[in-house]
Structure formats: structure tokens, C-alpha cells
């Protein structure tokens, strides 16, 4: 009795297996579709948040906050700053790197202070600096 019942149950389980596999595949496809939708929504949200914070993508970085400081443009500031990575971000090397670009130590210090102050009040300056630094400008 027990054995026959087990065999019957097994047969029924096996018979149901293809349908279960098919449903599992459908579920996986649905999960993928939902994940894709959520990712698209997240990307859209991120783009909206970035546009709200920094302006529309591709917008030109203009205005007084983007004017060069003591002869150091934001592009040059990013370039010199990036050079510090080779020295494990040793700040004492910054004036040396700046000097190779024709920037005096005094001008460099003024540039650091002013650009950093601008980034505190205007996130768009930081965003532009990041894009220049990482080569995504």
C-alpha cells in the first residue's frame, strides 16, 4: 500500500514537473522584466536628481563660479589635482606639480582655497571638477 502510494505520488510529481519548470521560467522572465523596469526607473530618477542638482546634462558650466582663479582654470585645477594620485595624494607635492604647469605656489594656494570654497556653495562646480578629473567631461 505504502509503496504503491509513493509510486503514484512520484508519478504525479513527475507529471507536474514540466509545468512547474515552465512556470519557473516564466517567473524568471517576469523577474528580469521587473528588474529592467526598476533599473530604468532608477536611472531616470538619478538623471532627474542630477539635472535638479547640476542642471541639464550637457549644459555648459558657466557663470562667475567657473571663472579661473589666479590663472588656474577648473580644467587645470583638475589636471594638477589628478597628478597627486601618483604621490599617494601627498599634498606637499601639489605646488611642485603646479609649478610644472607654470603656476606659482601662491597662486596654487589661492586656487585651492577659492575653488574649494566654490564647491562648498555650488555643487555644479564639484560635479564639473569630478567629470574633468575622471575624464568623463
Amino acid at each position, binding site marked *: 500500500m505504502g509503496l504503491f502510494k509513493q509510486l503514484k505520488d512520484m508519478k504525479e510529481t513527475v507529471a507536474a514537473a514540466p509545468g512547474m519548470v515552465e512556470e519557473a521560467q516564466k517567473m524568471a522572465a517576469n523577474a528580469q522584466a521587473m528588474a529592467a523596469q526598476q533599473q530604468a526607473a532608477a536611472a531616470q530618477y*538619478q538623471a532627474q536628481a542630477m539635472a535638479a542638482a547640476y542642471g541639464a546634462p550637457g549644459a555648459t558650466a558657466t557663470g562667475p563660479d567657473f571663472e579661473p582663479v589666479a590663472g588656474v582654470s577648473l580644467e587645470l585645477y583638475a589636471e594638477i*589635482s589628478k597628478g597627486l594620485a601618483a604621490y599617494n*595624494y601627498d*599634498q606637499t607635492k601639489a605646488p611642485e606639480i603646479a609649478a610644472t604647469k607654470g603656476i606659482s605656489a601662491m597662486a596654487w594656494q589661492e586656487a585651492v*582655497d577659492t575653488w574649494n570654497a566654490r564647491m*562648498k556653495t555650488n555643487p555644479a562646480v*564639484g560635479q564639473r571638477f569630478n567629470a574633468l*578629473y575622471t575624464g568623463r567631461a
Partner: protein
Amino acid sequence: MGFLGDINKLKKQAKEMEKTWDPGAQARESLEQMKAMNARLEQATHAMAEGDLARAQVVSVGPTTGMMNMDPLLPIELLVQQDGAPPRPVSITTAVPQAQLFRVRPGSMLTVRVSRTDPNAVAIDWMAPII
């Protein structure tokens, strides 16, 4: 015939499933991910223990890569700004407390701790005020 045929079908299905199933490779991949995650956690713990406070601007936030202590793990790109030094981009993956999620959006400012010995070790200090 029906029963034996079903057994045969089941065997074929199992073989089909096993074709793309490599538990060894999955275990190795998981191990590497755990190692990388632990290294990041150690860096963050190190930074929190002895690091200097700095401001950091959130540049971008990626989708959740996992959960830790019921908090989502998020890849975050930061622009770390320390006084007297030029800013620099840092990418971290960190557990963001549920109550702090609203703060992690592009353009927002956070306070971080930067290790004095390892400039790549950066941790967000959720309790510190914005400096």
C-alpha cells in the same frame, strides 16, 4: 512505460539543468566577492577609527548590490573635499542605514572620515554634522 518514461524524462531534465550548473565556480565567485567586501569593510572601519573628517559631495549612486544587517549596499561615487587640499573622487560600496537613504542623492553633501594612512579608505560618518 509511462512511469519509466517519466523517470527517463526526469533524468534528462536533471542533466539539462546540470549543464550550466557549476557549484565550484559559483563558490569561488562568492568567495572572491566576500573577500572584496570584507576588504572594503576593513578599510571603512579603519577610516572610522582614526580618520579625519572631510566633506564629500555625492556624485552618483548605483543600484543596490546586496543587503547587510537589513540595510542596502550601495555603490556611491563621492567627491571628497578636505580643507587645504584639492578634491578627489572616491568610489565606495557601503551599507546605507534605511533612515539615511534620503541623504544619498546626487549633489547632496555628506561628512566622511578619511584615513590618515590610506587615502583610499573612506567611510561615511552618518552621525557627524555636515562640515
